[in-house]
């Protein structure tokens, strides 16, 4: 019997939402780590009952929790994130130099083939890896030190490394995204890195076509087509067909091309989902209508998906890590809002229903397909 497990990180803890393959009746477990902020939790593809969670408060700092029973019980593991070698400085909002400082973990990405290997994207922007199930963490310092680091500046949410794409066919290739530095790629397992932002244009930069400085919100790729990347930038939805060497805009007929999430259909590499948000000064959907937009042509042409979503008086946001797709047939699509709703579609986005309506502010949504 197949099923799904949705993992939600919120401002007041983590929640685990379970259903069978019909995805109609849900069991909600949690909050885990109640009262703590959980930016992200995610399961290991190679051992689905192995979960990692990033737990944080301003009072007590960062903890990493690990579960080996699908989220029923948790154990704290290592929480020491020490920059490797020369710490250096990035730029502050006003352009002044500021020493790199570990603040929190934004994203945890377990490796495709080894449940004990997991990557952590942190603020101030850096990439860490654990090879012992989260007990100890080592920085892949080549990213921070490849040369452009002293010019990185934080976005409104901080200088955060929020997206980690691991190539399932080539463990040496990793793509990460940093707000507001841009997108970076390694082809040697993290030793050497280079910016891959050609084609991105940001009018908030002195040079709109600069090599770095772009506020990339999210990147997604289909596992079977890892060179085809989709990006929701601060403004603009873009795509690359060559692993990020060149990007071009596919915002097309979207009502606004500002937003945070982007996801790719699990069975159709040309089908993409975004949630347009009015603007960077109005972080809510246009006209108070919450709409997912789907393109079946790899961008450019988009259709609004509205059935079951509030079409009036809705002023929530959908944050960058808060959308996920399962791999059932038809595929399920999930997203969480800053108003505490988690919406699910069991038919590829055609219709939607809330799993829960009153959670804390949702930071992240992941889903595991269990077979």
């Amino acid at each position, binding site marked *: 019997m197949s099923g799904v497990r949705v993992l939600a990180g919120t401002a007041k803890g983590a929640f685990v939402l379970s259903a069978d393959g019909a995805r109609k009746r849900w069991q909600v477990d949690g909050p885990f780590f109640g*009262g*703590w902020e959980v930016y992200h939790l995610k399961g290991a593809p190679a051992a689905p009952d192995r979960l990692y969670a990033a737990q944080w*408060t*301003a*009072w*007590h*700092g*960062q*903890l990493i929790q690990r579960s080996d029973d699908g989220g029923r019980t948790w154990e*704290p593991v290592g*929480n*020491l994130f*020490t920059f490797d070698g020369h710490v250096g400085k990035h730029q502050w909002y006003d352009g002044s130099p500021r020493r790199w400082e570990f603040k929190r973990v934004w994203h945890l990405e377990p490796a495709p083939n080894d449940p004990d290997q997991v990557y952590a994207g942190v603020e101030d922007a850096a990439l860490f890896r654990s090879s012992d199930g989260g007990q100890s963490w080592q920085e892949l310092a080549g990213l921070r030190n490849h040369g452009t680091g002293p010019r990185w500046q934080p976005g409104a949410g901080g200088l955060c490394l929020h997206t980690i794409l691991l190539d399932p066919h080539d463990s040496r290739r990793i793509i990460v995204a940093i707000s507001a530095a841009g997108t970076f790629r390694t082809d040697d397992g993290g030793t050497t890195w280079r910016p891959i932002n050609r084609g991105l244009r940001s009018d908030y930069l002195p040079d709109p076509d600069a090599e770095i400085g772009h506020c990339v919100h999210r990147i997604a790729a289909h596992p079977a087509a890892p060179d085809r990347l989709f990006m929701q930038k601060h403004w603009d939805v873009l795509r690359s067909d060559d692993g990020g060497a060149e990007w071009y805009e596919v915002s097309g007929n979207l009502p606004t091309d500002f937003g945070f999430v982007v996801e790719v259909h699990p069975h159709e590499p040309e089908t993409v989902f975004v949630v347009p948000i009015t603007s960077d000064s109005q972080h809510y959907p246009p006209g108070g209508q919450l709409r997912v937009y789907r393109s079946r042509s790899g961008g450019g042409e988009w259709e609004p998906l509205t059935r079951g979503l509030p079409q009036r008086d809705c002023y929530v946001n959908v944050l960058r890590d808060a959308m996920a797709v399962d791999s059932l047939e038809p595929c399920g699509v999930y997203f969480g809002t800053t108003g505490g709703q988690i919406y699910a579609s069991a038919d590829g986005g055609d219709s939607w229903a809330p799993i829960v309506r009153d959670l804390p502010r949702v930071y992240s949504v992941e889903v595991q397909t269990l077979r």
Partner: protein
Amino acid sequence: MIRVILPAHLRALARADHELQLEVDEPASVRRVLDALEAAYPPLRGTIRDPLTGSRRPFVRFFACGEDLSSRGPDEPLPAPVARGAEPLRIVGAIAGG
């Protein structure tokens, strides 16, 4: 024997009682109490003081005998009633948030 009271979040994390009792070398100081606390409850490492510098986290305070000990040096001896176990050392999370 030193008595220590933890804030609610750390009690839950340590799976500990409201009040803990710790054996601490004399003369007892905040540093020695925290060393003993972290050794007995490893998940608390990094939650009260920075794991690298040892400095107190900004929203954490140390109270005892009606006084705020937070600004004292970490190696200063604790007040005698705390050192002999008559009074607890209270580790407190500052009031903030929503």
